[in-house]
């Protein structure tokens, strides 16, 4: 195999994507099934002059990468359900202080310790609503290693563009499965670098005053601009404020900067949608089985199509509504109790035609599981 072709785990595809994107600081804490990401990076990062640190817990891991991001580095941490729960407060801090960072959650079965070595997609709503207070967030996923690589690069690009944490919701199945990965040559996927202020030293710099395009140029800790960063509502200097006008303005900014760009942030794949009578909507590992069903049924002349979501938050409501419009039925395939199905029902023109094909017993959902649901909603026996 040539050097840029690899046979790897999904977790390693994530590492390759992160390094391609310019990751140079990682802090983490061991947890199944994400540990390989930390292990591989402890080896790879020092070779390129980057930094790896194993912290005392997941809270400290996210805090450490936020600190490192403020010095100008591209940063990431990786965890799984219990660790992701611990990170929620610091995640809200990164939202409020607008710190670019990437958080990988390789999902396992929960709640609590749950089933660490089995796949699940149970953290979708936690990624959206886990931290307290109104806010917007970006969360992405992928079903195969080439896409894990690509969305990881995209996660870094979005984090830098919008000064926001980005969550990668992979799962145990994709994380531990091995398949081929082709690493593109440098430059093939465009990278977004940190936007730094052009304001000269000695001139008043406003770290929290958005430009006309909504972006906020940053200044690295240690360089000429000294400013305050806080999780409190703050003014354009980053200093705490209890002014109603400031609070209202900042909260709207935090939500609008992402939710007003939902279509721009949305990433998805379409399979056989042009003439589909029945639409499957899926994401992550579950989309592998959904795709298999669609391709198999097409061979029999049945008009099934698949919408594979890669951006889960902000939820691409308009795109989903549009794709659902012509379908007789919509089946959401996921490995939880309907977390994305609820969003699809809210988006679809006729919520009563939206059904759930799921599996929550720690076993990977099979094409047969999906076909059985499809037959049931058509009034056929299984």
């Amino acid at each position: 195999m040539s050097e840029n072709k690899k046979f790897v785990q999904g977790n390693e595809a994530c590492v390759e994507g992160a390094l391609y994107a310019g990751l140079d600081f990682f802090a983490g804490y061991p947890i199944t099934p994400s540990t390989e990401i930390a292990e591989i990076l402890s080896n790879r990062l020092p070779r390129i002059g980057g930094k790896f640190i194993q912290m005392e817990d997941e809270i400290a891991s996210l805090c450490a990468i936020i600190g490192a991001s403020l010095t100008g580095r591209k940063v990431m941490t990786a965890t799984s359900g219990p660790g992701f729960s611990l990170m929620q407060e610091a995640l809200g801090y990164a939202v409020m202080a607008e710190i670019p960072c990437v958080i990988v959650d390789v999902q396992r079965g929960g709640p609590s310790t749950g089933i660490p070595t089995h796949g699940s997609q149970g953290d979708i709503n936690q990624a959206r609503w886990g931290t307290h207070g109104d806010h917007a967030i970006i969360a992405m996923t992928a079903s195969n290693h080439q896409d894990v690589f690509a969305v990881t690069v995209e996660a870094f690009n979005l984090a830098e563009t919008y000064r926001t944490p980005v969550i990668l919701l992979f799962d145990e199945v994709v994380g531990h499965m091995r398949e081929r990965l082709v690493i593109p040559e440098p430059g093939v996927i465009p990278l977004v670098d940190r936007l730094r202020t052009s304001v000269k030293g000695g001139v008043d710099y406003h770290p929290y005053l958005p430009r006309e395009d909504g972006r906020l140029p940053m200044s690295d800790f240690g360089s000429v601009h000294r400013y305050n960063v806080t999780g409190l509502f703050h003014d354009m200097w980053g200093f705490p404020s209890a002014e109603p006008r400031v609070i209202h303005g900042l909260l709207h900014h935090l939500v609008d900067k992402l939710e007003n760009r939902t279509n721009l942030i949305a990433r998805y794949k379409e399979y056989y949608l042009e003439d589909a009578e029945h639409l499957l909507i899926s994401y992550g590992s579950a989309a592998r089985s959904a795709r298999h069903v669609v391709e198999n049924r097409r061979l029999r002349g049945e008009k099934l199509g698949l919408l594979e979501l890669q951006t889960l938050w902000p939820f691409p409501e308009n795109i989903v509504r549009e794709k659902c419009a012509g379908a007789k039925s919509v089946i959401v395939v996921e490995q939880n109790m309907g977390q994305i199905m609820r969003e699809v029902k809210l988006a679809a023109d006729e919520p009563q035609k939206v059904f759930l094909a799921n599996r929550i017993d720690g076993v990977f959902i099979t094409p047969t599981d999906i076909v059985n649901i499809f037959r049931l909603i058509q009034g056929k026996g299984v």
Partner: protein
Amino acid sequence: MAAKDYLRERFFPHLWCPGCGHGMVLNGMLQAVEKLGMSKNEIVMVSGIGCSARISGYVDFHTLHTIHGRALAFATGVKMSRPELNLIVPMGDGDALAIGGNHFIHAARRNIDITAIVMNNRIYGMTGGQFSPLSGPGIRATTAPFANIDYSFDVVELAKAAGATFVARTTSYHVQQIADIIKKAILHEGFSVVEILSQCPTYFGRKNKAGDAVDMVRWFKDNTTSIGSKGKQENPDLIERGIFVQTERPEYCSEYDKIVEIAVAGQS
């Protein structure tokens, strides 16, 4: 540069109560920075949540006001990323040793070059006077209306046991000693812990009939003594002030630099 030149006067008045000891700590800290002739651009101050944590907003350094208890974890990320920067982390007693206790001992264990300052007023001030892990038994607080039964940590002993390579204690009465100790702590290469007993007349003082700010500061004068002094031998109840530990042990970021060297050499 005068100590005043390190302040962000734009953000005054500060939120501390009249008589609070935290301003005395700030004064001593800025005197130390001034004596060292440090540039404002080479200092990053990281703080958590509480009255003490607001100190970071008032100083003209790179300042990171974070979440409760986690200041040392954020500071570890900054330091690890840019070891050439000087990290000063002021924390309250609850911030540093209740919610932040784990980060405190692990930062000490790593011996990462950070100056941790515990502004110990033995109470949660910002939330209105609850007991902290440094209050000690017998103390009254809004959550200990009959008397506190929790024993307290000894910050000095805890820091020593966890591996801090510079450990010192003083009080808000001893402002010159604050400046002197913080100066040495900043110069020390490794994890430094400076405990500064500070008064909270509003909550600790009132709840415990400790008098006003002046009475509380006088208590620090009368009830503390230099390490190993004759006074201590005569009265073992006196609290010792001074530098308890100042030792050399490889610093974390320097050790990681060696790992980078090995890793880079290994791939050629």
